């Protein structure tokens, strides 16, 4: 039997609570994710989550004996009145990192072939939400690029899912170019990244305009990679009305594979130029693979 490939009905890929559950399941398998402190050290945004050490923050961390050099204004008189020493009240050091996630929600993401268990959008959303959960548990602030403000709430994953669910349809294959991320923020772009190379390059360039780091995650259906078609086949572009009739599809396979390799190499090159990372994830592989990859790229272990 020939490989079937078509777009899944848009109602079937609607963002729903199952995505949250799947994302939570997925995230539960990994330790919480702290963005490497190296990049967060100078962050001025604060007050959201402690770094388990004293520093600048809202929350009480510990009382410490007054030592010379401490500003007298920092003495906590109430505590100091209880015994004979002077105490300085130390706040917990709080520093948060903002990670912007962008998920491609164009029509082509609804693609699913009979070789894959689920459409690309499904994997992309689960991956994005799981990543968000990991980050939030790690105390980072997570936002959807262009859709929601960054939040570090424990309910962040629900908020993000809701924001996704109620977001207007977006046919764009790439993040909106107008919103460059902050210098120390990170961007995670999850999509099929099938847009022309120069478009990808300009989008990444605009995101990284202020020096923000980023990660490109290319979600690919196995059929897109192996081109398992034969016979007389009409290929239809899900976004535009463009179609191509191949008399013998099997004869197109080699050319396509070669072209796809070139495309990926180009994308990887774009990422490398901006210091970004690039991960290719196939929907017939477990989602953990991609999450682990992201974890490695984002987490401190990667330093």
């Amino acid at each position: 039997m020939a490989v079937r490939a078509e777009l899944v009905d848009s109602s079937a890929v609607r963002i729903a609570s199952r995505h949250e559950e799947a994302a939570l399941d997925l995230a539960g398998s990994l330790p919480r994710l702290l963005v490497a402190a190296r990049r967060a050290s100078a962050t001025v945004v604060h007050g959201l989550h402690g770094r388990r050490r004293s520093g600048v923050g809202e929350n009480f961390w510990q009382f410490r004996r007054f030592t010379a050099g401490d500003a007298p204004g920092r003495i906590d008189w109430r505590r100091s009145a209880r015994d004979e020493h002077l105490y300085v009240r130390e706040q917990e050091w709080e520093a948060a990192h903002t990670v912007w996630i962008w998920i491609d929600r164009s029509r082509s993401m609804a693609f699913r072939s009979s070789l894959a268990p689920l459409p690309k959008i499904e994997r992309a959303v689960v991956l994005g939400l799981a990543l968000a959960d990991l980050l939030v548990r790690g105390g980072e602030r997570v936002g959807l690029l262009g859709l929601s403000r960054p939040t570090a709430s424990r309910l962040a994953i629900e908020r993000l899912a809701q924001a996704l669910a109620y977001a207007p349809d977006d046919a764009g294959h790439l993040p909106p170019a107008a919103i460059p991320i902050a210098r120390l923020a990170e961007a995670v772009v999850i999509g099929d990244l099938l847009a022309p190379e120069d478009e990808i390059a300009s989008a990444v360039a605009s995101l990284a305009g202020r020096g923000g780091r980023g990660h490109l995650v290319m979600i690919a259906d196995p059929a897109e990679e192996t081109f398992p078609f034969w016979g007389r086949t009409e290929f239809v572009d899900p976004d535009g009305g463009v179609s191509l009739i191949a008399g013998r599809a099997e004869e197109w396979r080699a050319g396509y594979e070669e072209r796809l390799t070139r495309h990926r190499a180009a994308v990887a090159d774009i990422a490398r130029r901006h210091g970004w990372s690039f991960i290719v994830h196939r929907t017939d592989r477990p989602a953990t693979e991609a999450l682990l990859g992201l974890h490695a790229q984002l987490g401190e272990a990667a330093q």
Partner: protein
Amino acid sequence: MSALPLAFLSPWLLAALLALPALWLLLRIVPPRPRRVDFPPLRLLLDVTAKRETPVRTPWWLLLLRLAIAALIIIALARPIWNPAAATSNESGPLLVVVDNGWASAPDWGARTAAADAAISAAGDAGRPVALVATAEPPRDIALTTAGEARERLRVLAPEPLMPERTPLLAPIRKLLAGNPTTEALWISDGLAGGEARAFAEGLKRELGGGRLSVRVDAAHSARALVAAENAPAALTVKALRAEAAGREPFRVRATDLRGRPLADAEGAFAVGARDATATFDLPVELRNDVARLEIVGARSAGAVQLLDQRSKRRTVGLVTGATADVAQPLLSPTYYVSRALKPFADVREASGQGASQAVERFVSEKLPVIILADVGALTQEAHEALAGWLRNGGVLIRFAGPRLAGAPDDDLSPVRLRQGGRVLGGALAWETPQPLASFSPNGPFAPLVVPNDVTVSRQVLAEPDADLPERVWATLGDGTPLVTGAREGKGLSVLFHVTSDTRWSNLPLSGAFVDMLRRIVDLAGSSPAAAPDAAATTPAAARRPALPPTRTLDGYGAFRSPPATARPAPAEGRPAATPDNPPGFYGPVDAGVAINALPADASLARLDLAGLDASVAQIATEEPTPIAPWLLTLAALAAIVDSLVVFLLGGGAALLTRRPRAAAILVAAIGVSLLAAPGVVRAEPAGRDPIDERFALEATLSTRLAYVATGDFEVDRISKAGLEGLSQTLGQRTALEPGAPMAVDPAKDELSFFPLLYWPVVQGAPTPSPEALARIDAYMKQGGTILFDTRDALTSGPGVQNETLKRLLGGLDVPALEKAPPDHVLTKAFYLLNDFPGRYSGSPLWVEALPPVEEGEERPARAGDGVSPILITGADFAGAWAVGANGEPLFPTSSDERQREMAYRVGVNIVMYTLTGNYKADQVHVPALLERLGQ
């Protein structure tokens, strides 16, 4: 067309088959529909340049399937025919088509017409004029017509239930041929030698001269026929005929009665080489007498049907003799010759070991249609009366003279008054020689018989020369004295042979005429006195029956039809075989008619022998030509469905179904539901009957209740309810009846039969109930219910029922004759003794069903008819007088005083008691007399 029995009506269309290779090429070139695949990285693909663009070919087997579809359609359009009728030769002269359409052509009439049609069509295609002649039709001038007209004529031609008369056709044929010497003839023969077939063929050939004669005969299996049905004493037999002395061939004969109900089947078989065979129905006489039609099952021809009429019914004849000890010498027994003469057509029951009177009484009680008294003199009074009554009711009594009759006093059971004593002719003391039988009276039943010249009578009893004697004489001797007399007695017939039933007085019992005479008399009898023969059959004067009009005749296929316009009345004695004027069938009244059959009883069938005739003989295709285009088209449609399924599957259709299991499940479920739904609907149908409202029924029947008809006028209904409540209270206090609360009913809707009495206040101007409601009211009254109509207008109306509304209401009902309740009516005594029937108003009479008039001299204190009057009419406003309020206080004043209210209650109690107990009270007045009779 040589090997296969296949022909094409439009063979030129087959040329389209040449286009198939082109189609094959076309199908090869046109690629299959591409599979449609959504493919997001299409942009990448667009950059790829394919090396080669060769489309995938349609699979060869799919190609073959499509070519087969095209070929099937082309062949179907060429109108192929299986078993085509063979065509005639192609000459230029006119074509004369002679079609046998006698009964023998009926079984394979379709094949015959098809053969004729094919020949006519071929002639039409060749532009030859055609003359069509049907042999079973009366000869008339033959005209040449176009093939189209001839086919029209052929279409309306039907087999006639006759053996065709062919030779008279030769004359018009000769006339036709004189004008058209180049005519070619085609004779589609029924293959039987009957109807001068050989002579006709020779004559036809002779007339044709050099013209070509083709004869089509059917294949070996020609028509079968039934003849000579005989209701023999033991069984009903019928002979089956076939034309060829072939091998063993079983057949089945079915007997049906007049209404077409099958009575029995009998198996028979032609022996090897035999051309006739007998089928026997071993049935009781009564069943055999019901048989009206015998037919070979599946023969489909008028010749294979044998109709049986009254004459072939066997009647049971009771034979009573006055002699006692004749048994030892049977040849001297008075009954010997009679029973021998009757045996062929009647069942004879003889009185054995009984006196004549007991035997007569037994036969009468057994309702035999014919009783023969052979020299019986006086009968006992009872036997005489029984016999006379039986005779008046339609029995046929045949008496034979003899010494006892001659010596007995006249008993008015004979058709003529007899002189006492016998008259001896030719004896030693006689003057005259024995007299021969001289003539049969033309108005007697013997009229058609031939007078035998060998019958002599030496002794006889003489009739008194009354004025009506001549018309009662059926047979006379040479000297003019009567030998047989007959007269109608009531519905019956009394016949007297003036000689003995043995050979002592004459040799008539030895002659063949004796059998015929007895048969004619017995034929006049019905099968039992209850089924009385009609006057025409039994009145001697009318015994020479007029011609009988046809009642039901057979068509060529042996099915009954109403007589055609050409059918003429048949002579009363029937015909041995059908003629064009008298097609086979029943003639005359159902009970006394005659049946005419297609073939005479002694007919036999033979094959038409055409040996030595200069004619081309061919067989008619016994199988009818079958157009096979519909089958081919069906096949093509099926192949097209297979093709579309294949295309669907090749395009990934199966996966579409498996991927959507829910849709598939819904589809399967929908089909299942639609299959189940149909019987469900059918089952639901009977539930649509209007059931009795169960709650209403329980309420109405769990206690006896009075009921009133809800008029729709609130005030009137309130009074009715209050009145019946008051009456119910009174009944509960004073009588053993404790009725439940009264109910309102709507006669159009509610079941009325639960209520013994229905109080119906008549509201002026109320609408008349619907016909359905009237029917229910009528049924209620007929089945024992009583309706008390109260017009409540005693103050305003005069005497008599004048209320217009009531009149209108009663107009739709079957109301018995009414009268004012007489003073001795049981209504006045049912519980209380009453003199009149006051309600709220006094003076209004109570109308009841009129009682039968008082018998003279009977003094009864109370009278009642059978049952209860179904209708009571008053104007006294009973309910107004009975009506009580919630505390038992009367609601309305009466027209005089409270005593009148009490009387009104008593009237109500009496009416209820009357409806519940009927005429019981009227019977009770006899109690003193009964007690007295019991001796107490």
